[in-house]
């Protein structure tokens, strides 16, 4: 089976240690996590992790079931790229001097629709939101001019299927004995 990129969304109770419990499921199978993002979800008290890995679907299916069965994991699901809308954010710190108006670097920044977040005498911080290949493209084009610091966030993703977390949680809550 071919390896593909999968985005795994894991919804958990908001408690200490659950991230560890989740990542153990990856490390014990020696799966490299390409990116991870953690945040709140639309429901109070439920956190979500977005984890990107490249593996066969067969393995991802088993992995996600093993994550899903962890107590305090509310739900775990996986998607391929076409089933989600996703973004990453990248920040670039460059010397302010390279961005002189009309210069080549300035044109690159403009062409990429990157945002200027902060301008200091010595350096400027640029922001570009997009898919990895886009933020990477900007990185490569700016590289000859010198990038002083670079960081890219983990992928965050919203799923296209319309089943809401709220309905899933309600369904699960109905199962609990009153």
């Amino acid at each position: 089976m071919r390896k593909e990129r999968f985005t795994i969304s894991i919804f958990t109770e908001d408690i200490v240690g659950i991230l560890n419990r989740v990542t153990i499921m990856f490390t014990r199978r020696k799966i490299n996590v390409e990116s991870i993002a953690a945040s709140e979800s639309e429901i109070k008290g439920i956190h979500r992790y977005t984890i990107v890995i490249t593996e066969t679907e067969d393995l991802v299916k088993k992995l996600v079931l093993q994550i899903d069965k962890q107590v305090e994991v509310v739900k775990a699901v996986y998607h391929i790229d076409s089933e989600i809308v996703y973004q990453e954010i990248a920040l670039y710190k460059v010397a302010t001097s390279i961005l002189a108006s009309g210069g080549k670097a300035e044109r690159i920044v403009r062409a990429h629709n990157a945002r200027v977040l902060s301008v200091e005498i010595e350096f400027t911080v640029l922001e570009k939101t997009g898919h990895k290949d886009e933020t990477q493209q900007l990185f490569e084009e700016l590289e000859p001019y010198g990038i002083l610091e670079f960081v890219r966030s983990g992928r965050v993703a919203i799923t296209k299927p319309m089943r809401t977390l709220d309905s899933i949680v309600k369904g699960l809550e109905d199962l609990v004995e009153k």
Partner: protein
Amino acid sequence: METKEIKNKVRKEQQLMTGAQAVVHSLIAEGVDLMFGYPGGAIMPVYDALYDVQDSLTHVLTRHEQGATHAAQGYARATGKVGVCIATSGPGATNLITGIADAQIDSTPMVCITGQVASHLLGTDAFQETDVIGISMPVTKWNFQVTRAEEIPMAIAKAFYIARTGKPGPVLVDITKDAQFGEVAFNYVPFKGMRSYVPTPALEMDSLTKAAALINTAKKPFILFGQGVVLSGAEEEFKTFIEKTGIPSAWTILGLSALNSDHYLNVGMLGMHGNYAPNKMTNECDVLIAIGMRFDDRVTGDLSRYATQAKVVHLEIDPAEIDKNVKTDVAVLGDAKETLEELTKIVDQREHAEWLAEFRALEQEEIDTVINEELSPKSDVMTMGEVIHQINEVSDQKNIFVTDVGQHQMIACRYAKFKQSRSMITSGGLGTMGFCLPAAIGAKMGMPNSQVIGIIGDGGFQMTIQELGTIFQCKTAVKIVVLNNEFLGMVRQWQELFFDKRYASTEMVNPDFQTIVKGYGIATKKVIERADLESSVKEMLAHDGSYFLEVMVGKENNVFPMVPTGASVSEIRLK
């Protein structure tokens, strides 16, 4: 009234107590009357609270925390109740890990309580601080650190609920010392469930119907059953189901004893050292019905050549087990008891006499080439099998067997006879040497009226031999049989077969076990000659208290049949 008296009265009315007292009262509220453990600094407040409730809650002092976990496991597996063990922080907590890992892989309900350094010291490398939450996370079903007294009743209620429901497993509650000293208004509310944990998936009629259709049209159906049948208490439903469908049924070593040994549809043991027929027939059947088992690699051998001809039906409580190792055609999620009850209603009454006869023919082959020689050897050298056989012969076969890990374990599983469920307690998934002695103690304490017989190798015996002290102190009337081959037998067998007989570090120069055991005040006997075997086994079984029987068996005997690693089940070797 004096102010002090008033204060005490108020305390009582509000059920104010220390966190440590809340721990023991929570345990009592959960119906715990027996627990195993070992004290130390960080858990001393709880021990102090135990002192006051000795009438309702007995604490058994094992000689090592690993022993406490295995004893709790033995107790849990014999009784079906949750096993409880307790230890201090640091080394006490780390000593629990082997037993927890064993309980995790064998789905044994267990609650472990550990003391922890005071909360303000967490993360500072304080004396006897160890991150037991981190360490135990991969091997627990759930764990939780309590840092405030008022969290205790809820944490323990939740722990018991999670340990025993769904697919059972071990949980750990780590309690900081300040939480044990803190004050809580005690109010115990049993835990009812949580949205992020669905213990038992709902039964789907659709998959049941599909399963029934496959079963009803099968020409050569074959059932594999595991511990799921025992854990859900579905022994009767299982028996009814197989009797109606007439399907030959084979067991994993954790499913062993769920079906009487002499049942006409019981066709024996699966796996690496299992019986010839069920391994061979796995690759002959047309419908394979797995019930409460998880296709462990010791059962399946090479997966790419495992039952590829068969349609697979899997009855299972844990969705993560479906398709994990073997692709299923029909998965029926749910608790085995309910699933089997419903399934039995919609399957046809059938017989598979010819198919069953095929099993019996292969069984005969195994009897002729392996079993007869193992149970009644022509040579003077004693075998492990004849010892087990002797126990079968002279007992009512209502014993609870507990085994360690190695050749004797496989022999005990192969040859011990059973007339009731929950009678084989063995470390299956983890294969933990040292399991038997403490587990047998726990089983005997849980089932004081049963004959509990531990079967151990001379290697594994020495891994937890200190638990003889527990037997001595508690006067536990457990029977211990050491099958002494003066080798780490199972490893030696592999060295013989696959490593050119290069016996690297498997020969054991043993001390005189008789002298050691006598030191613990345990009745003991050593059998060197066959002539003494029968009378000694009888003496052991008839003895009122604990009894140690050491039998000198062939040093280089092997366990057969065998499915070598990497081979297919159908390539099982008779010699």
